[in-house]
């Protein structure tokens, strides 16, 4: 962080986009609304006509929707990782990026949370997944991994959102103090009367620490629980104890890549380079290299276990992934997740904007295909050879997926417009506080 930065400059720089947003922003919002309309239209068709408009080919009963669900949940990991785990480990480089990363988490979880409703056959009965007292005296099956999922995702969403808003309160207060009129009233309401009193800061810091402490195991548990959706099934290719660490590593991998994808243009567009530095991205890239390494190792281990177990069903699935009809999915996955990110070992690439941006997108593509590879190819090549099929998605599924990206970006765009996308108070914390005796010394 530049030593020239002062407290007031931080306020000014970070809040600038809130009041002076270029035409680009409106253009982007228009584009995103278009995508959302497309997705909504596709979902409308699906709701009215039934899931048959998607490409499901039994026994492939899960497809693009669950793939995209897991993808978004995975994206949602980086934010809380950065904000909570790095907070607890006092990694100071988190300050510049954690706010936007956290927002990304929440929006990613919000996007992911759409998918169970999109995925289930009777979306209008999806509320049955939540335990609530009813006259039928019916409850849920708490032994089902899907039920765990409901709990894990809703808990994750609730905790992340609370964490996010707690972190925002001092910054909203700062925004409040520079706005007037209706907007000012809104910020006043959201700031909950925050004035930065000693009492407020005292409990705030205590609570923030607890949130971080609670969110940390949650980060690890959410994707573990999601991975149990697969690992708890008997389906060959899924039934593996490797899944939780494998999924968590993959989630952090894709999440960090997504942070790079989002923050690079953000820093550029809002001239926040002084706060979101290249070395932030370098750190993220290194984190990606680390988790990507774990992931590559996990891919290898999967094959080793399948081979070593001598379970023919298992081994057949893994062979089929390479030589079967889904070879292209496997190839994309390996190229995007294991091979291309290795370029980041070169400092030149991992510090160049283009190198960071392109590879981070490639990683996101690869991670989507990883989930598709796990889901579709396992189901399409299960126990009974009479039921081996080839599932291909339809335009409805692609449309809804595009819609989900639009939904995510819409929230993100709104966020950068109305909330400070860099944590003002925390950035100030990293600055040396203004001290009178130092000023005298300087003079």
């Amino acid at each position, binding site marked *: 962080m530049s030593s020239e930065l002062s407290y007031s400059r931080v306020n000014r720089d970070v809040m600038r986009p809130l009041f002076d947003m270029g035409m680009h922003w409106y253009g982007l919002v228009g584009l995103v609304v278009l995508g959302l309309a497309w997705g909504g239209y596709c979902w409308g068709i699906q709701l009215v006509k039934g899931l048959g408009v998607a490409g499901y*080919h039994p026994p492939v009963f899960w497809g693009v929707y669950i793939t995209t669900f897991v993808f978004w949940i995975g994206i949602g990991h980086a934010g809380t990782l950065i904000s909570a785990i790095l907070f607890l480990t006092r990694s100071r480089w988190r300050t510049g990026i954690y706010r936007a990363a956290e927002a990304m988490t929440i929006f990613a979880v919000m996007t992911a949370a759409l998918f169970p409703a999109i995925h289930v056959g*009777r979306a209008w009965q999806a509320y049955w997944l939540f335990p609530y007292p009813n006259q039928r005296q019916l*409850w849920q099956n708490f032994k089902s991994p*899907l039920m765990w999922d409901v709990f894990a995702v809703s808990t994750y969403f609730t905790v992340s959102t609370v964490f996010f808003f707690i972190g925002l309160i001092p910054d909203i207060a700062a925004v409040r103090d520079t706005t007037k009129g209706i907007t000012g009233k809104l910020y006043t309401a959201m700031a909950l009367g925050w004035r930065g009193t000693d009492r407020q800061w005292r409990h705030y810091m205590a609570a923030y620490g607890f949130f971080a402490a609670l969110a940390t195991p949650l980060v690890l548990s959410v994707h573990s629980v999601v991975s149990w959706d697969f690992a708890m099934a008997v389906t060959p290719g899924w039934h593996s104890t490797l899944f939780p660490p494998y999924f968590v590593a993959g989630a952090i991998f894709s999440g960090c890549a997504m942070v790079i994808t989002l923050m690079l243009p953000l820093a550029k567009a809002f001239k926040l380079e002084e706060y979101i530095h290249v070395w932030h991205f370098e750190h993220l890239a290194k984190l990606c290299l680390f988790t990507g390494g774990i992931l590559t190792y996990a891919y290898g281990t999967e094959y080793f276990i399948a081979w070593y177990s001598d379970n023919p069903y298992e081994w057949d699935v893994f062979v089929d992934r390479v030589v079967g009809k889904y070879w292209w999915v496997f190839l994309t996955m390996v190229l995007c997740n294991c091979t291309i990110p290795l370029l980041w070992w070169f400092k030149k690439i991992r510090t160049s904007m283009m190198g960071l941006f392109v590879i981070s997108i490639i990683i996101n593509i690869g991670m989507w295909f990883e989930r598709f590879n796990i889901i579709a190819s396992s189901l399409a090549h299960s126990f009974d050879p009479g039921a081996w099929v080839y599932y291909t998605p339809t335009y409805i599924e692609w449309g809804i997926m595009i819609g989900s990206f639009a939904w995510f970006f819409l929230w993100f765009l709104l966020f950068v417009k109305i909330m400070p996308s860099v944590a003002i108070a925390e950035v100030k914390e990293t600055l040396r506080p203004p001290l009178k005796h130092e000023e005298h010394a300087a003079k």
Partner: protein
Amino acid sequence: MEGINRRDFLRAGAVASTAATAACTYDYKVPAEKVLPYVANPENVQPGLASYYAGLCNGCATACGLVARNKDGRVVHVEGNPDHPSGPGLCARGHFDFVAAYGPDRIDGPMLGNDKLTWDDATSKLVEAWNSAVAAGKGVAWLGQYRTGSVAALLGALAGAGLRRVHFEPVGVESLLAASRRAFGLDELPVYELAEARTIVSFGMDFLGTAFGSMAMTKGWARAKDPAQGKFVARTVAITPRVGQSESQADHWIAARPGSEAKVALAIAKLASDAKGYQGPAAGLLAGIDVAAAASASDVSEDKLREIAGWLAGAEPSVVLPGGNANAGADATALAVATLLCNEVLGNLGRTVVFRGSRPGQVNSYADAKALLDDCKAGKIGLLLVDGLDPAHGLPADADAAGALAAVDRVVQFANSGNDSTNDKTLILPSGSGLEQWSDASTEHGLHVLGQPAMVSLKDSRGLGEVLLGLAKAVAPAAPTDPATAAPTDPATAAPTDAATDPATVVAVPIHASATNFAEYIRLRWAAEVWPTVPGRPEAASWWREVQAKGVVHVPGGNVAAAWVATELPAAGEAPSGGGKHTLVVYPSPLLHDGRWANVPWAQELPDPISTFFWGTWVEIHPDTAAELGLGEKDLVEVSTGQGSIKVGWFGSKGVRKDVVAVIAGNGKKTGLYAKGRGANAVSLLAGATDSASGALAWLSTQANLKRAGGDSGVHPLCGNLDQAGRHLANNVSVKDALDKLEGEAASIVAVHHVPIDERVVENGPVDMFPEPQHPTYRFAINFDLNACNGCGACVVACALENNTPFIGPDQMRRGRTMTWIRMDRFWEGEGENQDVRYLPAVCQQCSHAPCEGVCPVLATYHNLDGLNAMIYNRCVGTRYCANNCPYAARRFNYHTWEWPESYHLMLNPDISSREMGVMEKCTFCVQRLRYAKDSWRDVHETVPDSALQKITACAAACPSNAIVFGNWKDADGAVRKKGESPRSYTLLGELNTKPGVRYAARVSYHQPVFGGHGGGHGGGDHGEAPAEHGAGHSSPSKKAGHGTAEGVH
């Protein structure tokens, strides 16, 4: 009670039930529904309870008995009649006859062109046409399907008045009949009793499928293959150019060159007579047979011929089956005579080949039909009555049926909707469904089947018998029945009659003159002709009530002695010609038959047993041929003969010779709601040559050329993989093992594919983390005997109709979204003579440790106290996790709300919920029937006995070969327990230890092992001990069975 008859009661009931199904939303404050009681209670009708009517299946000439279940005014299901000698069980095509009754395009009342007529108009037009034809000196002719019983008797009466009768079916029996006449001088068909046959050699007769009398043959074959029943296992040899459904069950497939079958049969007869030292009346015929020439003509080595003859002569009795004429060429009769000669030589007559007056009424040949059509074209026919045939679709182009019909002054069709032969001048008289009217049939000495109305007619139709009775009254008023015309064509009348001894049945005038309606006609005729033959002469009125209750009268013992009379053999026909590279084999569809069920969507959608294709026409070619042509998976193939060409999809079958192209018949219709535009008409490729000895159409007489035509054929297999990929799902055991280790005497002999497991598991059996759940009273279980299952699909259809599973159309089927709860897996192992087609009916296995149950988040599926894996539709949210987690892929998902098109919805079974979109469903072991049975037996405070359970599910009731047995595993003496403890028994994917309620009995075969070896004594038992119960001193066979690894696995 005046003015209210039975019809109205049923109608009121129907209204009530429709109203009940119409409303589906439920608001607890506003009842939107009416409750409509009867005006007057009909006898024996309980609202909400089913009534059963014995009836007659009109699906084909075989005329099996059936039982129709009427619920609240509609027949909702049919099953085979267990009192009929071919029952229990009902083939798939029999079920289609029931579906056809609800066809949406059934016409409502008589039609002339596009005009609707009243019945009075229509019948007067009919009589008018008859009279004017006679007045004009033109002929009055009948062109129809085979008919027996009272309709045949009425036709006999009409024949006396000048009606020219031609009874012809495209898939007919004329060559077999001609062969019997020639060989034994008997004008009837041989009955093949396979139950005791040690060796079965078939030249292509579809004896498990579309052949006349296949239900009885299927049962006999299943019994002959069952090691437990006769302590032997029949060896089946198929000598055909193509492996069809029946041939797929053979132990040896001998791919003789098409057209050479007769020579092969004669060679076998010669070799067998040498082996047996035959000295009978046919000995003279054998001298001139040249075995070496036959071998070279047929591509079958002399050694192989000798081996086959050795099998036949070595294990008595045996049976040699002819080619059905759909599978024979210009020498169909020669082949049939040669097979009879084989049977004669082998001493099978009277043992496995029996004559007892079996024939489907009057049988005319294709030549006769063509002669009639030629006369039509020549303007010699003034009135043509067409019954049950669609000549424009089912006859080769050279018969020009459409042109011939157009040249007739008045064509009257007895059909429920227009077909390809209908033109503007055709008078269509809808004859309704067999379930709506009185009918009868008699295809054998002493076997009479009665059909009675099981529901009110859905449309304004009038039975064929009723119309003919009216016509006979009008045009043959007092003419006495002419015994010369009627007797030989009607086996019923051939039975000895001495009606005069009972004054009640003395008939002074012809029956048709005295009977006021067809029901009365039947009753009077039966009183005159059937009743006197019944031993003991029961009291007439109570006898008739009993006949109505049972639906069948069977007086066994009408066998006729047969002596060989032929002194010379029919000349061999011409070899297939036409100048193509491939011999064209057109075969009737196992489901659509000759095309008569093409308009039944369930028939179109049920996957073909061999290719698992659906909704269309395709060719079967050898994979090498496909490679030569450079065919891609989706490419169309153009098949061209001198008569034309069709472009269809293809299936690479290892079961056709490389020089053969096989095309499935039945589709390619121009009319019919569901038939129109589906596939292509294979018959149009035939040259129309005939077998000179019988006049039968030579199906195998044409050569064809193949060409890649690109495009997208749209045909798609339902089964994903051709073979089992080395997995042990459908298992075989060797005959030796099966005979050495019969039921209950030894450990499992099934070599089951194993995942290598812990040594401790090998020693102590599978380890359960949790005990198997308690089943206090019942543990419902089912046993599929793969040794008897031949993939016919009857169970699949029966299940679909009982459980309201919809048909979904070709687009959805291509995505594999079949809704049928039974998936008939077909696995094709090996190739050449040794190829081995295995069928595996995969249903929900009702596991005790079910993977699906634990994963449902809303408890929509769970295990109940009866051992069933329950599925509650109205709780299901549709996460589909259960389906992913089912290793058997047994669950079905409602991707859409499938609505039954108008009038099919009347067929819905009201005992089970219909499912909306987004809901999972699966086999429930017909829980509605189980609950009904439990409810009934609870009234007398008893558990349901095994006898009441064995055939309780729709699939078990439908299975023609008794391959499916249902029961309570807790009943130690029950059939299902006995079968489940047989050494052949195994559970599917037993290594997963899901403890299924479904067990399979491995097929017993003479095949060389394709993989994994035979189970021979090394105890490759399955893990699944379920449905074993804990406690109660039961020890499951698998516990003793250890977990030896089968050789060559993985």
